[in-house]
């Protein structure tokens, strides 16, 4: 694994991609599969210990890289870290007033839907937030790839992170309703 890392500057290169927030998912998937087809532990199940171990380590690394690039929040965070910007997910929770207000509104809608056991309302809320996420991803792409404003993008990635977590909360609400 060290070797791959030595030669490759980042996860994007591992998959033959240019470092950018906007990426072609088909190309990422294609490259990932091409690599896996050659190094996956299933290829070395009948080999010696050394090869089996190496295969597991490499595959683990490739899986982690793929997971990072596949997920928009992780990709944004990773890309910004390459540009020296830490999005400060843990301690920097400062967000614009208007986003905070909307968060509260979404929370209220979620609680209401949960209380009423209203799956349709949950579904509508999810659809709205999915739309929101799509818009946000487009803005992050523009901010990083076109405007080269890593610092400005950090705030947007944090918002995206919030929306992703909120999606888990919607899942949990579905669970409650279905139980």
């Amino acid at each position, binding site marked *: 694994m060290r070797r791959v890392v030595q030669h490759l500057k980042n996860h994007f290169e591992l998959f033959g991609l240019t470092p950018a927030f906007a990426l072609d998912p088909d190309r990422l998937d294609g490259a990932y599969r091409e690599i896996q087809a050659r*190094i*996956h*532990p299933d290829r070395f199940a*009948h080999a010696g210990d050394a090869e089996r171990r190496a295969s597991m380590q490499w*595959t683990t690394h490739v899986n982690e890289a793929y997971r990072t690039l596949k997920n928009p929040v992780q990709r944004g965070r990773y890309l910004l870290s390459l540009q020296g910007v830490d999005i400060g997910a843990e301690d920097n929770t400062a967000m614009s007033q208007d986003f905070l207000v909307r968060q509260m509104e979404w929370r209220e809608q979620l609680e209401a839907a949960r209380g009423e056991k209203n799956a349709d309302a949950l579904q509508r809320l999810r659809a709205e937030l999915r739309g929101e996420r799509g818009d946000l991803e487009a803005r992050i792409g523009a901010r990083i790839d076109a405007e080269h404003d890593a610092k400005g993008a950090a705030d947007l990635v944090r918002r995206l992170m919030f929306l992703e977590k909120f999606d888990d909360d919607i899942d949990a609400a579905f669970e409650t309703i279905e139980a």
Partner: protein
Amino acid sequence: MALLQIAEPGQSAAPHEHRLAVGIDLGTTNSLVATVRNGMAVVLADSQGRPLLPSIVRYAPGGEVAVGFAAQAQQANDPKNTIVSVKRFMGRGVKDVAHVENAPYDFVDAPGMLQIRTRAGVKSPVEISAEILRVLRQRAELALGGDLMGAVVTVPAYFDDAQRQATKDAGKLAGLNVLRLLNEPTAAAIAYGLDNGAEGIYAVFDLGGGTFDISILKLSKGVFEVISTNGDSLLGGDDFDHRVFCWALEQAKLPPLQPRDARLLYVKAREAKEALTNHGEAPITARLSTGDFVDLALTTEMFCDMTRTLVQKTLGPVRRALRDADLTTDGIKGVVMVGGATRMPQVQRAVGEFFRCDPLNNLDPDRVVALGAAMQANVLAGNRAQGEDWLLLDVIPLSLGVETMGGLTERIIPRNSTIPAARSQEFTTFKDGQRAMSFHVVQGERELVSECRSLARFDLHGIPPMVAGAGRVRVTFQVDADGLLSVNAREKTTGAEASVTVKPSYGLTDAEIERMLRDSVEHAREDMQQRALQESRVEGERLADAVRAALESDASLLESGERAEIELRLGELEKALQGDDHRTIKRASEVLNRATEEFAARRMDAGVRRALSGQKIASLGG
């Protein structure tokens, strides 16, 4: 993707002989062994032509161990010593077992996994399962005419680490080289997908005797990718039997039964359930040892009523799996039905209504898992050439984490992560001068540790004294391709090597396995030396084979000196293999393994490069 149609002859990469490999479905109710012969996956039957082996083990008087039909015939006469559905006990404690009060066994609670007291002594579920696997191994060796190079053993996708480890240990104990633990629904998807040239997103609904799995897979040109999986490892056909059994008790107004009567009534309940698949009504009649006579009639309607909640119970995991895959039922092209319990019409109906499509039933739900496992075993054994095999990307079913302050779970590897996977997390000391740190490894989705499965507890000692918060310990979780976890903790502030690696889930140590092997009936008669020699030879030849193949294809990655060193060590191993000292063979294998570590690393690297050069965008340095 119709790979099955490709003719087999001359298919292997090198003109090596066909390596004998099998797939084993170690089921709750029945077990099977299958192999790929002349390009076709086939289930291997016993000498009387019966493909299924009932997963029943009886420790008979006189030290004989009966497995399968012979044990089944005695289950009502000797319930305490005849273990059925042992799979339910794998990696489980007494408190985890449903309906434990109805089981006729003399349980011994042991840390991690229960044991059962039989007339042949106290047996762990691992040993009992190994008896079943051993019979299947012998059946395969007889049918194929040689020692097996390896086996793929299937497990429910929703099995946790403890259950997986127990299954792998059972395989080792049965003398199998376990090439891979394969998730049952994934095995079914391979068999179904290859047989039907399926492309698109499919669900596999697998209701077995004791476990329920739902997996969502994407099938596309030679790739089987599990997107999400869910299930219930305590839900299966057995529970339907149990409902019928309880109903019969109630209807016949019977007092609590003797173990033998209970077993008899259970068997009758199961027979009635099976009869209802094709009939509207089934009788339940039994003469008990108390003289009571049970004479009842069960209709389809009554059966559906009493099991409605069980059928409903499968849909929760289905919804969760779809949500994790970010899909609705509209996105599912077909639902493959697997497991004998999916024969029940009410299950078929419920699945059809939920997915709004007819379930796919064109494969025998009892055999499809074993067939898929055999196909995968054939690939793993190296019997197919590059380009003619497929890629399988599977996931872990349950999140892995550690306990933090307040009994909460800190998730380290989330469920549905593609395996192999690794993830690290840092923890800091919370007291001045703290010298050790305790870790509790858990698996599950709940926030409270008490509601997750405890896999292991371990301590890291030797942390140098520092102020609170200054000591930093990095905990790394690694899940391998079998879905098995190992955990490493390392203190990194000072670089003073305080490090510990644990294999959790009460996996057996090699010494324990050796002891069990010695204790087992088969091997008491066998010369242990002979066995060790046999094993070291198989292992050594496999390694020599692999190194020769690697040199053939990738010698250009080596400097001449490096190549000479590997060839020297290879020669030494080949020479050791001519002799009959297992220690010499083992040592030569280890030396060759070490000598090829760097070569192995370069080969992986070259693999990545070749993958990328195919895309003409890569700008890899070096």
